[in-house]
């Protein structure tokens, strides 16, 4: 067995009582004290997340935009500096290899480059895919920056107020899904108005050597705002309430973007990209199973792999499920045939041998006011 990777904040997590688990080869905090308390802190004040395990890959060279444009389901050519887009990487068969954020950034000195933030579980796969797709004519170099940098998410209604004194750039003035190079506690870094919780907030990318200092400064700045460190357990319940898909659960190489409800992340117009030929006919395929949201009236949660039934017949499977701390009821996502996918449809979930009533509801489960 290979040793687990540690983020630059690992020492802090261990010293603060975090329960550390293997997550995609990283030794990561799943919770410090309570998932529910960490979840609620993010919804009502601010949560701080170590997301340094996410892969960060930098692209330089005149061919960078064109290269990424060919591999991503959304346009990269023509993205202005500062713009960030959620996109998918697909294989030739149209299956999803990863869901990513692509950033177009401007260096302090004026140079332009792109950054791809990928799932930790897919970093090696994507690095291999990039190498395989790069042809001799592609004027692009890419560098894995994951280990040299650290990534921290600050999310919640107080997040921007906490970060404003620490960030050189005007964080509150950044539009949603934009980012820029700036200084963070006087260290060079990147700030972006992005996140994975359904709350307002930002994410920062800083040198690994400065991560521990900056992490501490965030807690000092946030101590009167109810700031809390949040582990992967609450990160999962937060993203689930916001109905954000998670690779390996709602997304896989067997799923295409349209059935996952990610049509907004696919641009088929006047461009070509790897997988387009396979994906395009799926856009209006009336037969494929669709991602839906379910709520259950009881207290038992529908968990991943539990089966979904209609009139006794198995029609699908849960991809993620939990007891929602905000809604105080079980919520889940599943893939079901389109004839069973309408909001209001009554189904059941087999919870360890008992058919528990479930109903299809609109996604997301939670939307901030």
């Amino acid at each position, binding site marked *: 067995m290979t040793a687990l990777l540690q983020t630059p904040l690992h020492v802090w997590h261990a010293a603060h009582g975090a329960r550390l688990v293997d997550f995609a080869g990283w030794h990561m905090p*799943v*919770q410090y*004290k*309570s*998932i*529910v308390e960490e*979840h609620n802190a993010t919804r009502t004040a601010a949560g701080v997340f170590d997301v340094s395990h996410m892969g960060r890959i930098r692209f330089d060279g005149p061919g960078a935009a064109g290269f990424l444009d060919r591999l991503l389901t959304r346009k990269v050519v023509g993205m202005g500096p500062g713009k960030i887009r959620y996109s998918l990487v697909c294989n030739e068969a149209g299956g999803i290899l990863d869901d990513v954020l692509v950033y177009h950034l401007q260096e302090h000195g004026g140079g332009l480059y792109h950054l791809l933030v990928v799932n930790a579980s897919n970093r090696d796969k994507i690095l291999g895919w990039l190498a395989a797709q790069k042809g001799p004519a592609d004027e692009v170099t890419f560098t894995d920056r994951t280990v040299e940098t650290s990534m921290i998410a600050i999310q919640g209604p107080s997040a921007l107020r906490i970060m404003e004194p620490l960030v050189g750039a005007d964080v509150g003035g950044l539009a949603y899904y934009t980012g820029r190079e700036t200084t963070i506690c006087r260290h060079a870094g990147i700030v972006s108005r992005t996140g994975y919780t359904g709350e307002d907030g930002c994410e920062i990318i800083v040198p690994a050597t400065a991560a521990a200092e900056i992490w501490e400064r965030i807690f000092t700045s946030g101590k009167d705002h109810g700031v809390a460190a949040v582990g992967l*357990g609450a990160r999962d*319940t937060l993203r689930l309430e916001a109905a954000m898909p998670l690779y390996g659960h709602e997304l896989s190489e067997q799923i295409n973007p349209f059935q996952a409800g990610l049509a907004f992340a696919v641009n088929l117009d006047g461009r070509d990209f790897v997988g387009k030929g396979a994906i395009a006919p799926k856009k209006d395929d009336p037969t494929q199973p669709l991602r839906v949201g379910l709520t259950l009236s009881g*207290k*038992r*949660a529908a*968990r991943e792999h539990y089966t979904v039934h209609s009139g006794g017949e198995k029609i699908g499977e849960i991809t993620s499920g*939990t*007891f929602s*701390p905000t809604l105080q009821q079980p919520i889940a996502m599943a893939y079901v045939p389109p004839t069973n996918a309408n909001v209001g449809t009554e189904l059941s979930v087999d919870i*360890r041998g008992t058919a528990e009533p479930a109903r299809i509801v609109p996604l997301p489960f939670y939307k901030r006011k």
Partner: protein
Amino acid sequence: MKPEQLRYAETHEWVAVTDEGGRKVGTVGITAFAIEQLTDLVHMVLPKVGKAVEQGKEFGEVESVKAVSSLYSPVNGEVIAVNSDLPNRLETLGSDPYGEGWMIKVALAGDGGASKLMDHAAYQKQCAAEG
């Protein structure tokens, strides 16, 4: 109930064996260590009176935000009482796991297998190794 007087299963259930009118009764619950490990409890399913339980076999379940866990009977016998209000006040498990947090009372067959369980010192050693 004092933790020192209880017997423990490897799966973190405790049992207190008492003599009630000539028959042996085991009162069963889960340990403070288990409750701390579970955290964020949302639900619990307990059996009905009359159910036969078997040492090491599931008698109920406890669910947290993160996962669902089986409750395993530390003894053999028949359920004669259930703390049926406990699922409505799960916080009791945290505040008084060895008293008000009891789950079921079991009429034991013989000693119910209680002699095979760990004493407090052995259980503490196990928790130290797991924690």
